[in-house]
């Protein structure tokens, strides 16, 4: 999607995100198929628990999000990386990951689980594929 010069994407850690906006960006990014978007209470709990959220805005429209939990000392989990389909392939996802990594600092490893169809994306933005990762899956 072309944008006029000066009509840029802005990034912030401070802007509050409502659960409706969270739901909307999950839907517009394609991540909704893998998140409990039908259950607003569950989305609200997710959103309330993140340590911080980096968001990307085009004017007043939320176009990308990176949600992170961290201990600020060793590990961080990037729970949701979502970019509106109309704004993908413009470097927004990469920027959100870079800002998230900068925010947690050099002592912290940033970890994420990729959706299967996004697995080729992360090595392209400099993330290391790590095979020794283990899960106990949610049952609901």
């Amino acid at each position, binding site marked *: 999607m072309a944008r006029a010069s000066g009509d840029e994407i802005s990034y912030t850690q401070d802007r509050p995100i409502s659960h409706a906006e969270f739901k909307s960006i999950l839907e517009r990014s394609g991540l909704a198929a893998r998140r409990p978007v039908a259950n607003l209470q569950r989305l609200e709990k997710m959103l309330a628990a993140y340590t911080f959220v980096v968001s990307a805005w085009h004017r007043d429209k939320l176009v990308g999000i990176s949600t992170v939990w961290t201990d600020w000392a060793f590990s961080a989990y990037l729970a949701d990386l979502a970019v509106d389909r109309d704004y993908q392939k413009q470097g927004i996802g990469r920027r959100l990951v870079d800002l998230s990594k900068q*925010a947690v600092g050099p002592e912290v490893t940033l970890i994420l689980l990729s959706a299967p169809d996004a697995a080729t994306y992360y090595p392209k933005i400099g993330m290391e594929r790590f095979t020794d990762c283990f899960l106990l899956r949610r049952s609901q």
Partner: protein
Amino acid sequence: MDFQLSIKTMPTDNTAERIRNIIKQHARLSADAASLAPSADLYEAGMTSHASVNVMLALEGEFEVEFPDRMLTRGTFDSIASIQNAIEELTSG
């Protein structure tokens, strides 16, 4: 007139002052930003990595630049002097 104009756009001191203002607003330091030496370590003065992102985003807005990936390191933002070097590199040419 031309001479005055060129004086007006000389960046150095003004840049440092603008950086200092942004640090004051966004770095959440325990020390007073006004009294910091240009080479003082901002992380030692209480800036967290999380706050450094707010500083960086505010600098991008203030100076109308975008820090490239290679500059998104602790070293770029660890003092007023290193921030000033980075801004001057991004705004030169």
